[in-house]
């Protein structure tokens, strides 16, 4: 895959999604970068902001299979993964595995925090191992595979916050904010008239191969060792214990219970590589890293009680870390 070809396809997909979703340009780009980096995305925002539409538009534009799972408290793991059913053919009765909605290229886990932890954990293996095991049989997921989960920051009664282990499996956590007045006007124009605009399919039937090529190219993007070292220092600075106990970021010691895992560093570098390709470069710059630090690390910082009590957010702590860690 040629970098220019990557860029062209990326912008075509992005343009199609932007034709449906008004605003959220940064979220759309980050979702696409995470997709081509092979990651999963957690979208957090109030209801009605277009999260579900964004995911549907993405799958349409990519020409990939799309499944949506509405997570509720009574949702069972089998409802996601699949279950054995008794089937009869030619006079013989056999158990067959009926694949659940997780077996799709793009899976929308809507309001994932409303399901029980048991159900939530059903998607863990699929997200990380890209395979599902049911009754001792392992079923591989067909690439590309991406889980986009949404959660509502309000109406927290009766919800089950995602466990840290599951949060760590999300490549990015994106905040979907309310649209600006002009954007809201455009939303009204598009949604209150006759006809519903949908994203056109950009990739054809060989879309999976193209996506695999783009995925490979993204990982080949050059990154200098000093930049990798910067990422390492950033992630290490999020650790409130160990060597960083006497570090230079007091906010980390004061408000964090746990810091980012190595997956955080991986997400930063892959996200920066994707950003570099989108910017038309074949190498990562510091600016690329800076643009993905927040979505890559904000859900990996586990705040303590004091931070919750003082309404300190992970983004505030990340800002302090970025300020404290020098680039050179």
């Amino acid at each position, binding site marked *: 895959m040629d*970098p220019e070809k990557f860029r062209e396809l990326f912008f075509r997909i992005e343009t199609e999604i932007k034709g449906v979703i008004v605003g959220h340009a940064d979220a759309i780009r980050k979702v696409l970068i995470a997709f081509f980096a092979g990651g999963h995305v957690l979208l957090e925002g109030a209801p009605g902001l277009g999260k579900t539409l964004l995911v549907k538009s993405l799958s349409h534009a990519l020409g990939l299979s799309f499944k949506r799972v509405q997570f509720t408290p009574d949702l069972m793991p089998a409802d996601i993964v699949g279950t054995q059913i008794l089937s009869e053919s030619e006079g013989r009765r056999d158990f067959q595995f009926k694949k659940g909605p997780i077996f799709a290229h793009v899976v929308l886990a809507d309001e994932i925090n409303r399901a029980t932890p048991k159900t939530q954990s059903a998607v863990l293996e699929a997200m990380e191992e890209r395979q599902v095991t049911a009754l001792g049989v392992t079923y591989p997921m067909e690439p590309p595979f991406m889980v986009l989960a949404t959660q509502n920051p309000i109406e927290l009664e009766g919800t089950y916050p995602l466990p840290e282990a599951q949060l760590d499996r999300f490549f990015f956590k994106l905040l979907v904010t309310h649209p600006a007045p002009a954007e809201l006007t455009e939303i009204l124009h598009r949604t209150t008239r006759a006809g519903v605009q949908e994203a056109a399919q950009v990739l054809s039937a060989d879309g999976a191969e193209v996506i695999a090529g783009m995925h490979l190219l993204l990982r*080949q*993007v*050059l*990154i*200098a*060792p*000093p*930049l990798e070292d910067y990422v390492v220092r950033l992630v290490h600075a999020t650790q409130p214990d160990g060597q960083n106990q006497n570090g230079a970021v007091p906010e980390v010691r004061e408000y964090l219970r746990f810091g980012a895992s190595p997956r955080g560093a991986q997400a930063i570098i892959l996200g920066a590589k994707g950003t570099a390709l989108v910017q038309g*470069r*074949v*190498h*990562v*710059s*510091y*600016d690329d890293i800076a643009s993905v630090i927040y979505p890559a690390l904000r859900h990996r910082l586990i705040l303590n009680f004091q931070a919750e009590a003082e309404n300190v957010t992970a983004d505030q702590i990340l800002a302090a870390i970025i300020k404290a860690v020098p680039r*050179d």
Partner: protein
Amino acid sequence: MAGSLATPTAQPEKIIDGVRHRLAIHALWQAALFFLPPLLAFYYVIFFLHRFGWLDADEVMLAGAALLVVASVLAVGRFRSLAPSRQFAARLIDYRAEGKDRFVTLATIDSLASPPALLSRLKAEAASLQSRIEFKRDFPFRLRRSFLDSCIASLIAILIFHLLLQLAPLLKSNSGESIDLTILSRQLAQFPGLEKLAESLKMLAARLEDSALSNEEKRSLIEELRKQVNEQLAGAEQGSGRGEDLLRQTSNQLSGMEEGLGAGQGQGKGAGGNQAQSPTQRGGGKGSADGGQGEKQSGLKTPDPSSGAAEKNLPGPMQQTGQEEQKQAGERTGGKDGSQDQGNGLSRGPRENLESKGGRGRPDQKSSEPTPQRILRPGDQGQAGLKDSRLVTVQLPEEDAGMEGAAAAGDRKRRTSDAKPPVGNLPLSRPGQPNATPEKQMLPLEYRELIR
């Protein structure tokens, strides 16, 4: 390095290396300039010490070479810390050319493990940015703040050195004369034919440090060597220059020391009595127990015309330092003559008083002898600013009581009795019975304050 503009066809790696080389040269200059002022300051101190005989030529050469080596090593160490890395040079290029970390990536990435297509594309992008780089414009040599700090620190060090030189005579120990002799021996050793004498002088200086020797033995040693010096001086050709001056200075120094030892010994024997000293025994009045303190000054101040000539022939700083030493030594003796006064009673001659007051210019009485030029005459301005000041020694009742413990107090009181009419309260003989024991005439209370 020439300020050549990078050509678009040049390899970006060469640009990085070129900038790094240029920055390395800058760093070398920075390191050299940082250590240059302290090196020059040290050389100044060394040559200063050499000029005044504290260091001989060999020591100067050795110290100079050692300093050069140390400064070079330190400069190399600083250069290594300042020398830019390839990454640093690339980062600067990125900053100047807005290269978005292209040069940093090129400078640090493992080219063998990188996809060739992407690497070649990165090189092409970096090469297109080279036209934005101009060495002279973008990487000029600038003096660092550290150089200025180094200059200031060096100047301060030199000032402190001179300040310490000024304070050194005040802090000088009892071995000051031996040091002076050592200095003289080093200076003499530089003149052909005087090496043996210099060696003898050096040995004498070493022996004078020996506390086991009595003053008499020391004096005899000094006298013996002084004779050698005088013989050498007599045999020296007229106008032989500084060697002759040094010989005269050495002779004067030895004379002063000899007289000082003699005076100190005489004091020890005549304590409590009225020991009269000859006018030539100047410096004897400084008689502390060892009789050695301050004699150097008296030796230098021997009213020998040749000595004066020798002092005049000294080069400027040397002469100035000598005068200052005389002045300060005079102050020392002036401050220590209280015990001598106690021992000598009131019998010291006026000239001795003059000498005992050292450089303070406190003439007591005019001597009937031919007055050397250096002694103040009536109407001359004294060093302490007193004009035509006269001194009178007044024996206070405490002194009359002969109390040894009141010696210091008596000294203090005597200082306050300067410029008083020559009237004393000495015991008077009874009329008609001149041989009777004189009765004491007590000082009226109302006059005490005036005299004190």
